[in-house]
């Protein structure tokens, strides 16, 4: 343990050198592996990106490449893959990893500073100040040495880039308080990968005039409420269709600036690429993700039901409608509930984003390993607010690995041995989904508890 503590305490530069070395070794290994093995180390998407870049160089559309369903930005970014060397993209992703790691460190440090600023008890402050650096360092290392993150980047998958953009948005929003820039970044994230759109409501609530720094003291809440009430009394009520709408439903300047930034970057990028690649760009990079139904086996809870019902002739208003409702309503309810539930609290933004990502991923109609990186990127931002013993963390990780492993076995038998194991894969998908729900439940139950325990013990 002493050795581990000493390793954690190493300075940032040393950790960056270590992390870079690990990544460099894996990139070189990837080249060697791809040369001699039938199953390539390099992610299939990396080849897709590189081919798309090749099409761009040839003056063609990146969407001429089958299965290219991303923003053309990625194919432009990876043009050096064709012009200079194929590993350029992997090196770029790895460097971006280091930048994200540093952002995580800064953001956690600033989050704890904010917490301390509004925390009432001085003696607790001293304890936390000591831990501030340690938590920031731990958060950074959790990203930097996470095997999944390392593997994903060195295999050439761009999902760490998507995750990095979300973290960058959170950083600019919370640390820099630059709402326009945060909006621009959020728009860019949505353009790059659509899923960050689910965070929009949480961001807007965070920027609300009614958001607050919670102290676990009911009097403070009541006092704040009284102040808000007084303010509100002086505000003219607006009547619409006989309903009284309060002014707090009308966006404030920060929210407007954020939305403007978001719309600006998203629409400029979308219109620019629409101008060049027309409807095909809209369909492949945006619309396809809404109409997509993947019948091939994947981690998703819904995969087998989707496969079995794919070509059945249903009465559209009865069965199809209920299928859509039952599939989409549960995650929608949770996502909305989480936004409203945590939204106004200034301390819970990162945690809201984490929970929303988990919900979005586990309820997704298509779920592959790379989607877990979206979660992995946000976890480090919240570790200082979670109270878990080493035993319970180990247990949860073990359950997750077991659930994945037991899914992988029938999936392997189906894909590579040709055995009919659909039903077993479905059972394991359910088990994996339950595992994810349990893990989310544990996260929710253990959130912020640490601070309360600290407070109680003082």
């Amino acid at each position, binding site marked *: 343990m002493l050795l581990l503590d000493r390793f954690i305490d190493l300075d940032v530069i040393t950790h960056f050198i270590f992390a870079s070395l690990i990544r460099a070794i894996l990139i070189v290994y990837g080249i060697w592996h791809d040369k001699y093995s039938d199953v390539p180390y390099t992610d299939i998407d990396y*080849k*897709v990106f590189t*081919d798309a870049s090749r099409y761009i160089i040839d003056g063609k559309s990146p969407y001429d*490449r*089958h*299965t290219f369903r991303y923003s053309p930005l990625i194919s432009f970014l990876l043009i050096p893959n064709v012009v200079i060397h194929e590993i350029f993209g992997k090196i770029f992703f790895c460097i971006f990893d280091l930048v994200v790691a540093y952002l995580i460190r800064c953001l956690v440090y600033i989050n704890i500073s904010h917490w301390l600023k509004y925390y009432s008890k001085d003696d607790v402050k001293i304890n936390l100040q000591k831990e501030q650096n340690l938590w920031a360092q731990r958060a950074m290392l959790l990203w930097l040495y996470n095997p999944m993150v390392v593997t994903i980047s060195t295999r050439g998958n761009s999902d760490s880039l998507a995750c990095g953009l979300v973290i960058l948005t959170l950083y600019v929003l919370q640390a820099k308080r630059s709402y326009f820039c945060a909006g621009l970044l959020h728009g860019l994230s949505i353009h790059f990968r659509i899923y960050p759109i689910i965070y929009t409501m949480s961001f807007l609530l965070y920027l609300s005039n009614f958001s*607050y720094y*919670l102290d*676990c003291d*009911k009097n403070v*809440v009541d006092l*704040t*409420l009284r102040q808000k*009430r007084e303010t509100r009394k002086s505000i003219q009520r607006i009547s619409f269709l006989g309903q009284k709408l309060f002014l*707090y439903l009308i966006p404030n300047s920060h929210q407007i600036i954020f939305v403007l930034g978001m719309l600006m970057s998203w629409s400029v990028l979308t219109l620019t690429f629409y101008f060049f690649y027309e409807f095909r760009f809209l369909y492949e990079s945006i619309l396809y993700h809404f109409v997509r139904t993947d*019948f*091939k086996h994947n981690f998703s*809870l819904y995969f*087998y*039901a989707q*496969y*079995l*019902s*794919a*070509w*059945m002739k249903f009465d559209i208003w009865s069965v199809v409608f209920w*299928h859509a409702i*039952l*599939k989409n309503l*549960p995650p929608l*309810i*949770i996502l909305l509930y*989480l936004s*409203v*539930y945590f939204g*106004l*609290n200034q301390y819970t933004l990162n945690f809201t984003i984490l929970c929303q990502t988990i*919900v979005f991923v*586990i*309820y997704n109609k298509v779920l592959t390993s790379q989607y877990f990186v979206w979660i992995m990127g946000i976890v480090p931002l919240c570790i200082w607010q979670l109270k878990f013993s080493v035993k319970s963390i180990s247990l949860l990780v073990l359950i997750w690995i077991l659930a994945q492993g037991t899914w992988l076995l029938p999936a392997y038998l*189906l*894909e*590579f041995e*040709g*055995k*009919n*194991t*659909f*039903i077993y894969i*479905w059972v394991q998908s*359910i088990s994996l*989904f*339950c595992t994810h*729900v349990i893990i989310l439940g544990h996260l*929710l*139950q253990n*959130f*912020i*508890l640490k601070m*309360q325990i600290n407070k109680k013990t003082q």
Partner: protein
Amino acid sequence: MLDIFKFLLLLINFSFILGEKCINLDINIIQNIEKQGFHRNMVWLIDSHIPDEKLWTEASCKVALMLDIPVEMYVDPDQMNDFHRIGKLEVFIDGKVNIETVAHQSTTHRVFIYLNKFILNSKHIETLPIHLRYQKSHLGGYGKVPLSKVNFLVNCVEHKVCGNYQEIRAPKKRQDVDSVIPWQNITYKGHFDVLELSVPIGNLEHYPFVVIITYLVGCAGCIYILSILTNTKNKIYNFSIYFSLKLIFI
């Protein structure tokens, strides 16, 4: 009439006398399948016997294999591009390939495998990766994937292969798709171990309980998460909801 017949006979003999030589080819092909599951390899062992090696060299012949791919499987064009780039295999795919569609929504295509490293009077092994498509769910078990026999094509600049063979028009090489040339479809002695592949398919009898349980689990997960949020003893949630509700209903 007799005169015309005599004239034709003379013409044939004349061309023979002029030295219109043909190449004798004796080809044996063993077609086999490697691996199981959705990703397999078609392997051909080509055993060639050409008595007149000099004539073959003079003729500057090209050799290719042609295979018709049924809707139940596909050859991945991008994988072929990669193979071509690293000099592993030169394949031209005639037809559109959508690697994501299921069997009944797909179309057939034809592949030409150019045997650039074909050596006379020796055994040549050629491997082509193929991928089986998902098939429409039925009553479980396995769906059939018919395998067609490979065609052995030869194109010679100077002479022709002896015998009357069907002519196939196909690109000269992968990079030059527009220059279509005639290829002789040579008959050969074939040995085919596998004429049909099987692929697992979903069982529609599972449909009712799979759908019901799947949606029940999805909804139960939602209820469980919401119940944790509402029942948690953690004060921050209580304050959050208290605060939010007050803001709304004040």
